[in-house]
């Protein structure tokens, strides 16, 4: 929406208003029972997940289908370190370790995959990674708790608003790093790789380095979300931690809003999360059918994502309002 308002200042103002709203919202309602607080909490996580994918796929053009692997690593690192007594409830160290663990796996697996595979092959490879980790966690015996998973001391639970603010913090960190990265040399390099990898390499860009950087940073934030999810559920199990929904839903959100844009995945996350929740409330039995039909309809009528539509619409409107022509200027 920076493009919507076409000026940096308007974009900042818009972000600031949103931020203030989200910061004071839990104090306006009863955070423990408010459905909206829960809704925003899940949506924040989805925003961070969608942006984690957006960095790798939307900007760098490397479509990863293995984000659930990093989410699961985040869950398990948090659960295992807490069970071992090294970390505690809402321990920044555990969350950092979860993120770093995910990033480390991303680097180790990314070195061979990103160096050798392009396009669909990379997507398939990352999908395989997620499934391998799921089976390893399932067969991990006492270390990962096997099929029954790891239960955490749920008596530590204090308040829903803690989750809300930590999710908000993770989202803000994700968005801020994405914003800074995409507006620096790194972002330019990533987009150059997306547009034409051979040409990017010919122009002196170390493509592997940048691809791995994007993959690892995306994995880091996905791992953070996984860690928070472990704290929220107090229970980590392969079916939940390595669920393909953790990769598929964020991808849907990013594409719905517009992959490769800053505001697109945020918009997509809020819209899709709202559609899913409303469908769940109004027609619980038909919810998945309705949501799936929604996805099909969106791809039919808005295949380029909402952001491209909004941008195009803005141009059409602003062209008619000549006093506002300055808004069309590139920033």
């Amino acid at each position, binding site marked *: 929406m920076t493009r919507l308002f076409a000026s940096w200042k308007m974009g900042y103002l818009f972000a600031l208003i949103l931020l203030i709203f989200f910061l004071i919202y839990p104090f306006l309602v009863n955070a423990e029972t408010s459905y909206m607080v829960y809704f925003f909490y899940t949506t924040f996580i989805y925003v961070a997940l969608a942006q984690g994918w957006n960095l790798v796929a939307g900007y760098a053009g490397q*479509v990863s289908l293995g984000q659930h692997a990093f989410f699961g690593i985040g869950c398990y690192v948090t659960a295992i370190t807490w069970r071992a007594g090294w970390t505690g409830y809402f321990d920044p160290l555990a969350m950092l370790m979860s993120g770093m663990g995910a990033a480390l796996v991303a680097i180790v697996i990314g070195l*061979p*995959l990103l160096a*050798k*595979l*392009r*396009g*669909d*092959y990379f*997507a*398939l*490879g990352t*999908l*395989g*990674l997620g*499934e*391998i980790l799921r*089976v*390893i966690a*399932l*067969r991990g015996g006492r270390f990962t708790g096997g099929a029954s998973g790891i239960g955490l001391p749920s008596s530590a639970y204090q308040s829903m608003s803690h989750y809300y603010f930590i999710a908000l913090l993770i989202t803000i960190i994700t968005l801020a790093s994405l914003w800074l990265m995409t507006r620096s040399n790194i972002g330019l390099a990533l987009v150059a790789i997306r547009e034409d*990898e051979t040409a990017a390499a010919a122009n002196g860009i170390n493509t592997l380095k940048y691809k791995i950087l994007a993959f690892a940073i995306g994995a880091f934030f996905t791992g953070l979300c996984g860690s928070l999810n472990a704290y929220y559920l107090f229970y980590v199990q392969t079916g939940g931690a390595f669920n*393909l929904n953790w990769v*598929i839903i964020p*991808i*849907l959100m990013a*594409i*719905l809003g517009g*992959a490769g844009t800053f505001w697109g995945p945020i918009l997509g996350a809020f819209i899709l999360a709202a559609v899913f929740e409303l469908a769940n409330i109004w027609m619980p*039995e*038909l919810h*998945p*059918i309705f*949501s*799936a*039909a*929604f*996805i*099909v309809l*969106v*791809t*039919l009528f808005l*295949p*380029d994502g909402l952001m491209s539509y909004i941008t195009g619409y803005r141009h059409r409107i602003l062209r008619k309002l000549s006093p506002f022509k300055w808004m069309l200027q590139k920033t």
Partner: protein
Amino acid sequence: MAGFSSFSIFFQVFINGIFLGCMYGVAAIGLSLIFGSMQIIFIAQGAVMILAAYCIYWMVTLTSIDPFFGFFVILPIFLVFGWAIYKGLFQRVAKAGKNPSLLLAFGLMVLFEHLMSLIWTPNTRSVTTSYSTSAFGLWNINISITRLIVSIVALIATGFVFLFLKKTMLGKAVRGVSEDMRTAALLGISPSWISSVTFAIGIALAGVAGVATCITYAFDPYFGFLFSLKALIAVAFGGLGSVAGALLGGITLGVLESLSSYIISAGWADAVAYAAFLLILVLRPEGLLGRRSAERT
């Protein structure tokens, strides 16, 4: 033969793997064809299979027609069905690029899964016949008759697709489009017409694989995704876009799973399959049979 008490057990496991692999193979050919012409992974392939399986389930329980007759029922219906999906949905979306098509395929998969679970309940179903359990022995190996027939049907279907691609003009056009869409269009081949043909064939093959599945295995509405993944692995084994490779990839995968679940344990079979998949992707991305192409994007 480490881990096997006798050679005949090894052979038994091997044969079972081949039977399983034939089904992966047929689904994989459909996936590979669609990938060839549209450059997308049609992730709903497994859901379409299960849809066919439920159709046969209905046919058998309501009319008590022999399930093998289902091959002849499903084939034309799913040809038209696939053509309609392409014309109604994918033709429009394909213009916008690959990501929306992938998203659409995913949306279709979820839609099919939940429609099926609404219509047929999420309970596990299976189609049983009077001869479901019959088998014959061959050098101490039990060969299930249904699985054998199903595998033969799968091989015949593959053979027809192979002949279609090699011997007919339309098949040549399909191969041309999958090799280089722009040049094919310059030579007067309409890519969207070819895509609709391949999509119809791909969906029909998913239907055949679905009939085969329902005769030999129990299934539920969500079983399809796993099958999509397996078909995907089979395609990667054989190399994207190759028909014979997809079938061989499927059989390799079936044997690999069957052997590893016997030697290690059933739970690790999936991990072995995925690990082999990753290894092949990294070491030989063009597949076991594929030719190395200049550009793989």
